[in-house]
């Protein structure tokens, strides 16, 4: 079962991934495909939570990268 909202948000965030969008998209697809047959509700909830965690990590990564670049450029 693929959670479309989570998947599309992750792919949207992956567009700025430092190692490239294709790299991110392929790894993302593998991760979702690996778990597609899981039916246990508890497990699904956990996996979705993990996906949301990855989302937050990506946002933090991009934010830090931008902050550090701007700080270096304008404040040092």
């Amino acid at each position, binding site marked *: 079962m693929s959670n479309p*909202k989570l998947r*599309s*948000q992750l792919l*949207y*965030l992956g567009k700025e991934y430092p190692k490239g969008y294709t790299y991110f998209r392929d790894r993302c697809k593998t991760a979702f495909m690996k778990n597609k047959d899981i039916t246990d509700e508890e497990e699904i909830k956990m996996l979705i939570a993990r996906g949301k965690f990855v989302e937050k990590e990506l*946002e933090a990564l*991009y*934010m830090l*990268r*931008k*902050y550090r*670049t*701007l*700080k270096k*450029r*304008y*404040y040092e």
Partner: protein
Amino acid sequence: MSGFRILVGCKRVIDYAVKVRVKPDKTGVVTEGVKHSMNPFDEIAVEEAVRMKEKKLASEIIAVSCGPQQCQETLRTALAMGVDRAIHVITEPKEYESMQPIHVSKILSKIATEEKADLVIVGKQAIDDDCNQTGQMTASLLDWPQATFASKIEKSNGDLSVMREIDGGLETIKVKVPAVLTSDLRLNEPRYATLPNIMKAKKKPLVTKKPSDYGVDITPRQEIVSVEDPPVRQAGQKVESVEELVTKLKEAGLV
């Protein structure tokens, strides 16, 4: 007490992470096919306005961007972050190249008056031209107080208490509303627009206007003479002792 009406300026610039290249004819930098996004300091301005709305300090946020058709993407990002509506002041790509803060600030001040804005928030400077002028000029044209390089904005009895980042450290000033504020890096961390919000943003109002609608003439007042790469950094020299350093400085005629 009804909240502030906030006008936010969003400039579309070459993305901060892109390596900028000078055009071979030295008239400017390469912009064709290059990734563009909202000026980071403007993102911070939008975020501050949205946070004020979430805290019920603001009632409506309007985003403005001046430039060619693609500026609408920048405005869509602002709408996705939480802005209520957007105004796109459209110019020809050629006109945009010679557009300066003086033109933009005239347009912003006209819009601020028309929309009865209480606050105008813009980024402190754009990362492409680094002018650091639009906010200050807008305040002057509107005859409003200004609080620039804001790193913290708080409400205090109907006025605003703003902490500013200046060379000497931090300065806190009080400004009466209406006012112009320019955002500095540490004001906040802008949110990332989620896909559902981007979809919702497509339904938010975005109007297109021309500079002439505001009675502003955008004929260029400056001419770009040449654009060049910065000089290549010379390699430094390592010295072994203080005496050697002094000798070298004397040789170079600096001491």
